[in-house]
């Protein structure tokens, strides 16, 4: 028998090499992901940097290479005008003058949208997932619903936009034998319509992620609860849902991210580009950050391209703040449960 723990046969050495290589590959994949992220963020940040440069610095930079301009940029960065412009960017509305344009209505529009979207889609999504995983008996019907949901995830968001236009913004008249029926909410081109439409877009993500999280809860936990005289709902509410919470949070995070970055369906349900007031209720007309970004990015003027990058940073900041809460929940609960 072998005497030293490090003395090993060839096969074992090979297996360990495979394992080590596998670890390196996985770590490499992670590094690659991070690299992509950093690359993207850096690109955006660098582009955004020029957004707030004062007129005169801009003029100075004309025709200089990046390196030459570094000094001027740095000094501009540490001067008050740069930050004043940064502030006006946050509190002003859109403008055709790049030095004046801001994202205030877009920020509020987006906040309203994702707030309401989360409000609609999370309970509905988790509810549907609970129904499918805990309540519905295995049946054709369940299979059908399941298939349905997986399918919905693949429907392009613009189609939801068309649907939202039909049933939330307007209403469709259905001709039936007993008379004509008006199907839809006729809400008009308002935030609420947008949020409802986005809710439909992200619902499959919430449902599917929640289902997986529920499935991962060991059956013995449910058995233990039932055996203690808990009802189905008590078992679900007190044991299964808390245990599945971290996984569900992932779904919620991804859903919010998606809702925040989505533009196409919003255009369809009537989001606008310019709005001269800050939306104050779900019944306001609205614009949203991604729309602003798209529009600026497509503008001929390069100054607007920097503004688009700055708006992306704002969007990411909003996203990160929204995610922080969810991440905290996931971390907090994820820590405690190690089956």
């Amino acid at each position, binding site marked *: 028998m072998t005497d030293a723990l490090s003395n090993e046969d060839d096969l074992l050495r090979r297996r360990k090499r495979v394992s080590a290589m596998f670890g390196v590959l996985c770590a490499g994949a992670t590094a690659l992901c991070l690299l992509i992220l950093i690359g993207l963020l850096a690109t955006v940040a660098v582009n955004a940097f020029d957004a707030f440069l004062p007129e005169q610095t801009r003029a100075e930079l004309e025709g200089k290479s990046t390196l030459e301009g570094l000094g001027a940029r740095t000094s501009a960065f540490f001067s008050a005008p740069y930050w004043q412009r940064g502030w006006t960017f946050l509190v002003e*509305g*859109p*403008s*055709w003058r790049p030095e004046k344009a801001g994202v205030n209505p877009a920020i509020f529009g987006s906040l309203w949208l994702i707030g309401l979207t989360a409000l609609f889609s999370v309970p509905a999504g988790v509810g549907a997932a609970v129904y499918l995983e805990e309540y519905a008996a295995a049946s054709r019907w369940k299979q059908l619903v399941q298939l349905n949901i997986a399918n919905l995830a693949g429907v392009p968001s613009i189609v939801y936009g068309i649907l939202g236009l039909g049933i939330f*913004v*307007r*209403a*469709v*008249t259905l001709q039936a034998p007993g008379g004509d029926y*008006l199907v*839809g909410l*006729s*809400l*008009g*081109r*308002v935030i609420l319509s947008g949020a409802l439409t986005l809710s439909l877009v992200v619902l499959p993500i919430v449902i599917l992620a929640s289902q997986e999280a529920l499935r991962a809860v060991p059956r013995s936990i449910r058995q233990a609860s039932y055996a203690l005289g808990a009802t189905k709902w008590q078992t679900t509410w007190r044991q299964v849902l808390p245990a599945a919470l971290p996984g569900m949070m992932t779904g919620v995070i991804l859903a919010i991210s998606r809702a925040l970055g989505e533009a196409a369906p919003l*255009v*369809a349900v*009537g*989001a*606008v*580009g*310019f*709005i*001269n*007031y800050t939306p104050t209720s779900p019944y306001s*007309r609205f*614009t949203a950050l991604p729309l602003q970004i798209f*529009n600026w*990015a*497509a*503008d*001929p*003027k*390069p100054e607007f*391209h920097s503004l688009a990058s700055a708006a992306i940073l704002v969007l990411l900041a909003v996203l990160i703040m929204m995610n922080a809460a969810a991440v905290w929940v996931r971390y907090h609960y994820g820590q405690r449960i190690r089956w």
Partner: protein
Amino acid sequence: RPAPEGGSDAATGSKSGSISIDGSSTVYPVSMAVAEEFSDQGTDAEVTVGFSGTGGGMKQFAAGEIDICDASRGMKPAEAEKCKENGVEFIELSVAYDGLAVVVNPDNDWCDELTVDQLKQMWKPEDPAQKWSDINPDWPEEDLVLYGPGTDSGTFDYFTEEIVGEAKASRSDYAPSEDDNMLVTGVAGDKNALGYFGFAYYIENKDKLKLLGVDGGDGPVKPSMETVMDNTYKPLARPLYIYVNTASLKRPEVAKFVKFYMDQAAKLSKDVGYVPVPDDVAAENAATLEAALGAAPAKAPAAE
């Protein structure tokens, strides 16, 4: 059936103290600039400007959901029909011209101008030129790499109409993009490339592109504010329009806004990179508007 759509009309479009504009993304910058200046004048009206495309805007306009529709082309008969069906009456005002620039890579040292016919050879659907040398034997025998806007844009329609002679008649083996900045990137990155897009995109990327003169029969002319305005840059300058619902026009804030639009259009369209309409067109606009405003109050009861 218009009934439900009319219902939403009440919810948004006709709300007192609000003006809603939607439609062409090409006209959007002008309308937005006007709206912004208008707001800065101190008004309570809530103004919104969207950019869901000329087609999308027309759909809403015909349904009476918006007050003003931006358009990068004239209204189509089918759309006019829809308006009529829904009892939407309107006036058409042309607010600016968009010169289409034909550009090549700055490294292209053989080509400085093209005739309409040569352009047609390049872009026609049947048997188009494949090499630069197919156009002019003196030019290099290099692939002709073409860039153009998305095939569902007003620019595409206009270009094909003027160059090939029929809207949407175009070769299809070119690289289309929905974002004109991408076209700039494309032409700027390929020596053998040629592309066309809005003049404003050329202005902002002068150093990366080479502008070609177009010979519409009276010798080659390069697009510029002047050549477009005095109508010497032919035929690639297209008019941009706004359509105003006459029923909306009876609302004071809309009337005020449209008047303001006409006053400011010249200055602001220039600022955002388009060309102001010539004086005679401006006068025509004024007359149309005047007539509509005069008629509006009388028409009002009928429209409701």
